[in-house]
């Protein structure tokens, strides 16, 4: 299954709900009149968020009409950027970072956990159709490697067991607590600070 080309079974209709509509209006207001097309990327992202992390063709059409631009232009943008998913990825979209720092700290253990819990292959929906996973490049949280991202939240300082637990919770419909799983606050040093001890607010 490729996320880069439109999915076979497309929903017939798409419309922004009231929250999305508000968010879209806010974005469009940022641009001068007649240049509302500039909002296309933000609107595609809003559509993706509303529609369980993927953009159907109906949404592209809807946005094209919304911004009065040709369909093909929206289609071009949607197929260009890799963070737009053009096929269903489930309500919970798991992205495992496997770039060097995470890889060295055992990112492939996380990948194994995903394979066990979610699906054999990347970009494949789990049995309950609610979740899928994929390997991604650096998510910018190297200090807390290895880590993965589920929808908008980061889950950091993981190993295979912790990942399995998180995935279990997700598959049973609960939302696990985001952040470090070794009890750190953000990316503070483990076992207290060791440098700049004389600076109060460092």
């Amino acid at each position: 299954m490729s996320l880069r080309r439109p999915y076979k079974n497309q929903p017939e209709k798409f419309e922004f709900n009231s929250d999305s509509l508000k968010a879209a209006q806010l974005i469009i207001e940022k641009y001068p009149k007649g240049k509302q097309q500039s909002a296309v990327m933000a609107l595609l992202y809003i559509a993706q968020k509303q529609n369980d992390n993927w953009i159907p063709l109906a949404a592209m059409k809807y946005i094209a009409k919304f911004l009065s631009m040709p369909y093909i232009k929206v289609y071009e943008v949607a197929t260009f950027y890799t963070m737009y998913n053009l096929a269903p990825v489930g309500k919970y979209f798991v992205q495992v970072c496997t770039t060097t720092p995470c890889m060295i700290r055992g990112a492939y253990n996380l990948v194994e956990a995903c394979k066990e819990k979610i699906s054999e292959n990347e970009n494949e929906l789990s049995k309950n159709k609610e979740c899928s996973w994929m390997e991604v490049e650096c998510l910018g949280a190297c200090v807390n490697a290895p880590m993965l991202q589920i929808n908008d939240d980061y889950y950091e300082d993981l190993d295979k067991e912790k990942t399995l637990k998180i995935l279990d919770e997700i598959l049973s419909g609960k939302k696990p607590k985001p952040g470090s799983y070794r009890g750190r606050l953000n990316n503070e040093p483990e076992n207290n600070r060791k440098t700049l001890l004389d600076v109060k607010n460092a």
Partner: protein
Amino acid sequence: MLKLKVNNIEIEVEEGLTVLQACEKAGVEIPRFCYHEKLSIAGNCRMCLVEMEKSPKPIASCAMPVAEGMNIKTNTKFVEKARKGVMEFLLANHPLDCPVCDQGGECDLQDQSMFYGIDKSRYKENKRSVPEKNMGPLIKTQMTRCIHCTRCVRFATEVAGVPELGAIGRGEDMQITTYLEQSMQSELSANVVDLCPVGALTSKPYVFEARPWELKKTETIDVMDAIGSNIRVDTYGWEVKRVLPRINEDINEEWISDKTRYACDGLLNQRLDTPYIKYNKKFEKASWSEVYEIIKSKLQNTDKEKICGITGDLTNMDTLYVFKEFFNKTLGSNNIESRSDHTYLNADKRENYLFNSSINGIENSDFIFLIGSNPRYEATILNARIRKAYLQNRMQIVSLNDVGDLTYPYKSLNGEIQKIKDITDGNHEISSLITNAKRPMIIFGQSVFKSHNARFIFETLKSYLIKKGKISNEWNSLNIISDNASTVGSFDLGIYKTNDGSNEVLKNLENHKYEIVYLLGQDNLKFEKQNEFIIYQGSHGDKGAEIADIILPGAAYTEQNGYYTNLEGKLQKAYKASYPPGDAKEDWQIINELAEIMNHRKLFNDKEELDSSLTNQINLLIEKNNMKDFSQIDNTDFTKEILKVNHIDYYYSNVIARASKTMFECKNSKINFKSTGTEG
């Protein structure tokens, strides 16, 4: 003016040009794929790299504006290396399938890789393959060959005004496609075939037909509409293989419509290749002398007032002229007509049926008012010019009727004829738009002349324009989009019979007042045959031949030399590219021979005599016309009516198009087309 050096030649160029254009002025050729004069600059093929002094990297000359004191070099090792490098990348994913590619022999990539490329590839990996795309019945795609120059995308968006093509994906996955692979909804779509520098987009009807070097090329004039686009006809033996545009900046620039390009396969089908006589409702083959004798006896035994001739939509002026001479001199009759409908005609002055502002003039216009016209179908190239002018000047465009998507925005009124009255009385906002505009254009479509109030609409608006000084020597705002390629030529030669503008011959014909009807390539008549004896002379077995009693096989526009006057009144000569099939003859010859049999005297000894007599006639007409003033017609009666714009069966408008398989497919694809929303 800016001074710069190109390969140590000093040149002066205007500001705003690009380095590539400056190099061309200096006579230095720069290879390019994505750059095209008529399209916006993309700068993505990188083939035009040149060296600029003080720049560490080569520059893309097509996208770099010229500056004072630049020192450009195009013949250094540095440039050569850059070109070779770019060429190697372009060829990395290009299949070297030139032997089976239709573009072979006229391919920019092929030519330029011979010139600027290297002789072998260092690329050992697998080449990418891209699935073929569906772009409708005219364009065949082989997207593996695509080098992503995006010329087609820019053409569709900018010139054709149908933003349906685009580049999806990125990097190696990039593909050019139409939205969800629907066919392109434009009458100019096939121009992307010419624009494509490689064999990615090729002509579907022409697929594997011939190689460019085997074809005989004839530069001639198109007759599918009144524009008179300049074309090149490529023939292989008798067959017309394809039609390509020729550059004429005053008329069609570089583009031709799909009908012009692809109706040519209709020249091979349904052809009349031998004379026929109808016995007991069945056509039987006959010889020329037989049919001539029958026609002679019929014509001689009929009152000359009971004979009429109606000329067709594709007939050239030479033929029309002979036909007129035949009727006037040999038969002594005036009953000849070129209009196949009840259209209004005021031929007092030539300006009354011409597109007076000229096609080039559209670009200087600051206000356009369309009346009863859908220029997209009536004159596709002209519509493209209006779009071009709109993009340049953003002038206001108003149409009396809502005619759907014209590829540019316009304001539409409801079509009431009362509105014309209001405008000429100065009681409508458009009155001030017309009077305030320096160069307004009022464009009348054929639907105006076919309506009952044609006389009112045309004459009152014309006198309004004269009163407001909008028809003068500097600028003539009166524009008529003529129906067919031969319309203006016929009127110039006086092939009409009218007192008050109505079509008298057609009226009498419908009342069955004629005994003999001579149809010269006329297939668009809607009339019920009773006892008339019908002679049909033409190239195709269509509606005209069907009702005929005698068929004289003539030649099509690619098979005879002849003049055509386009809607602006420009006289252009079409040249013979092929010859008539079988026993068919050139049209002027048939009539000339008939005259000889009737009167023992030819009308013209040869084609030269005919041509010189014709051009004299036309020059005389123009001279006379310039002396005349517009006649005043003050008849302002009108009935309340909503002007309707007649539906135009674009792909089926003449005999050649009706005989063409490609046009049939185009028509079908249009019917099957599901609305996407981009249309307006």
